[in-house]
């Protein structure tokens, strides 16, 4: 077997074996949970009549994960670990909620405004991480993490404070937004064609950014080697800020979708942890935009479908998270191991060639 095939097969084998082993350990045959996850997310057999609502939910979970993943590809290419993505989703949701609650306008206009507000909110929160990094010298991982929690606090404050439901001090969320602010959806489900279009456009945009544009190439250069990029005349700090702003804007739209397209109000856990999930997606997709589409859909299926496991298998619905985590960790270790072996192999070959020469 060639080294190339081995390097590809090893990670896949690790993923399959560890997932199956995990399911056996959980006391079930591996097939049942997978079938129920599919059934719970897109129906069994898939796309059967009467599953429109489930599919709508799954798609609307896919939307924020995929949007955030698209954004993360930009920051990763710029060499930045944007752990602050959660905060950017949350602030996007807050900004969209603000627009939804305060602006009165006809529906198409208001929907447009909520999306713009969400994008701006997320963008500014992302920019803050970038400014802390470029001006303050604060590592983006810790700056972003801190701002995530600050965003959560602001949400909580708004929900029990100024935006609390009339007469009730509750952490269950704000009042439902007026209809005119909600993302237009498809026949009684949450499925919003507009959200799908925006998401696909975002992924396509990121794909084009790194495939065909000078800006994307420069971002990559900044991410790979900042001193060299600077000497080439690229204003590196401006590009870093740009990456955070693009990512933040996409995350902000993800937050908007969460607020006006899924929950229809602002709730404390508005991000649904989809930002962190998106980090896993992007690591698994190895920073390639196209792969974000299927992988994030798969993750959305697991997230939605796993909720069925309680009812059907008496298995905790949190199995979904375990599957996602196992998948990414084993892929990462598998690929790492394959790369390690390849390095050793190359070293050995090199030494052999040297010996032969002397």
């Amino acid at each position, binding site marked *: 077997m060639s080294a190339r095939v081995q390097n590809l097969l090893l990670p896949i084998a690790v993923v399959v074996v560890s997932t199956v082993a995990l399911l056996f350990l959980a006391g079930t045959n591996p097939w049942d949970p997978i079938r129920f996850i599919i059934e719970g997310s897109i129906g069994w057999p898939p796309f059967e009549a009467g599953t429109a609502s489930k599919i709508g939910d799954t798609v609307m979970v896919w939307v924020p994960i995929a949007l955030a993943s698209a954004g993360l590809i930009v920051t990763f290419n710029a060499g930045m670990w944007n752990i602050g993505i959660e905060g950017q989703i949350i602030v996007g949701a807050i900004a969209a909620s603000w627009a939804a609650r305060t602006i009165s306008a006809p529906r198409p206009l208001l929907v447009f405004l909520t999306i713009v507000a969400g994008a701006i909110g997320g963008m500014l929160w992302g920019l803050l991480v970038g400014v802390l990094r470029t001006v303050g010298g604060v590592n983006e991982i810790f700056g972003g993490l801190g701002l995530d929690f600050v965003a959560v606090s602001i949400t909580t404050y708004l929900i029990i404070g100024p935006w609390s439901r009339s007469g009730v001090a509750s952490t269950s969320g704000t009042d439902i937004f007026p209809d005119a602010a909600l993302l237009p959806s498809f026949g009684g489900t949450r499925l919003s064609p507009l959200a799908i279009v925006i998401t696909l456009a975002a992924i396509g945009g990121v794909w084009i950014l790194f495939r*065909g*544009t*000078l*800006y994307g*190439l*420069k971002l*990559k*250069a900044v991410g*790979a*080697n900042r*001193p*060299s*990029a*600077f*000497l*080439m*005349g*690229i*204003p590196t700090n401006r590009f870093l800020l740009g990456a955070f702003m693009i990512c933040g804007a996409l995350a902000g739209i993800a937050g908007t979708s969460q607020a006006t397209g899924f929950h229809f109000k602002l709730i404390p856990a508005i991000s649904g942890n989809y930002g962190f999930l998106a980090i896993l997606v992007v690591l698994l997709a190895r920073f390639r935009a196209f792969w974000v589409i299927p992988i994030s859909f798969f993750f959305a299926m697991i997230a939605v479908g796993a909720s069925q496991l309680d009812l059907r298998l008496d298995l905790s619905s949190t199995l979904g998270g375990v599957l996602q985590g196992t998948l990414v960790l084993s892929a990462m270790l598998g690929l790492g191991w394959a790369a390690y072996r390849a390095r050793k192999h190359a070293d050995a070959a*090199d*030494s052999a060639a*040297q010996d032969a020469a*002397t």
Partner: protein
Amino acid sequence: MSLELRDIHKHYGPVRANDGISLTVAEGTLHGLLGENGAGKSTLMKVLSGFHSADSGEVVLDGKSIKLASPDDAIAAGIGMLHQDPLVFLPFNVIDNFVLGSPGGSRLDRKKAAQEFAELCDRYGFNIDPASPARLLTVGERQQLEIVRLLWLGARVLILDEPTTGISADQRSKLFVTLKALATEGMSVIFVSHKLEEVADLCERVTVMTRGKVVGEAEMPVPPEQLVKMMFGQAVEVKDRPAVDHGAAQLKLSDIRTASGMLSEEPVSLEVRAGEVVGLAGMEGSGQDAFLRICSGMRNPRSGSVQIAGTDLTGKNYRDFLAADVKYLPAGRLEEGLIEGLTITEHFVLAGEDRGFFVDWGKAKKRAEAQVDHFTIKGTEASTAESLSGGNQQRLLLAMLPPRLNVLLMEHPTRGLDIESADWVWEQLLARREVGTSIVFASADLDELLRYSDRILVFFSGRIIGELDAKATNVDEIGLLIGGRSVDSGAA
């Protein structure tokens, strides 16, 4: 302790850094190891200090063959290494640096260590505050700290790798006095350097290395010409090259001075005219780097003005200089120049003039292929920067230069390159004179400086101590100035 190296081989990838080195150092001698950068001296010393293990060969200490698999082994055998950049822990204080890694139980007796440290310092006339964090020490003091530490650990063989880089003249003479004293106490000292002057000053015996091999040995004193001959194969002779008429001043520095450190002592003024080549000589870290950074706008001086092609750019940033057709190529080709992971085509796109939003990859590929051909880069348009050899990386960097340049600033244009690539690089650079580009380059290679410069500025300890006409000077004169010996001949 006498030390003998027998037939040491060490390669990194395709590079044979050490190709059968044999060397004997007698007890109580100061042994110089002389060679240009990249001759394999540092590799040999890393093998000897257990940092890297040799592919083959033998190290014999007092007649016994020893195994050097890790620095631990070297320390235990009594071999102490002082690295070019002293490997101290900057935030820790002197005493912690002193004791870190010393054998002993878990108990850390700082008081006792401080006492012994003070005794050793006294003995060699060092004056280091034991409570000061190492980051506040000068490089010279860090060296002293390391020397004292190695002595304390019982080193009987002391290796110093380019120890005079970045230290003051005072500290250097103190270092030499110390080394001589140590040798009389029976210590074997290996002094690694690419500076003739220093080796001649200090050593009793010298070994010359070139391209991974020993090319000569001599008992000192020997006339410097003989050492130069060993190092370069022949005494340097300046070949004639097509002369170019020098045009108007392209780069004009007036009374430049930095706030602190390099180039802060006295103001620098300089005019470089179109088509002129100015070489910067000096030990590494004597101010050439600061000088080039000021000329490139990477750094702003505290006072004085910088003019490029008649336009005042004082206080402007690097990108403004770039717009004024000034280009700077630092020594680290993969660190400050090329970008790992990007292909040759992508490099050309980044360096190109196109400012459109989209990249026309078809066109870019064709152009890159043509450039690869034209500059005879061994690779394809899809090769990544890191897959190229050093010579081809330098070719790529030169190929990426814009066609029009007012000023080209370079560090070590041919360091680590084979002769063919080095000649090619200079062919390219000299051709640029024809279109009126001024070239300012720093080099540690006297041959290169003499061969290609019109004028040579010699840096010493953060100042320019000499400006020489390349046609009228010689290795000896530059060598003296580099060592800071003579300031009277033709100072700027």
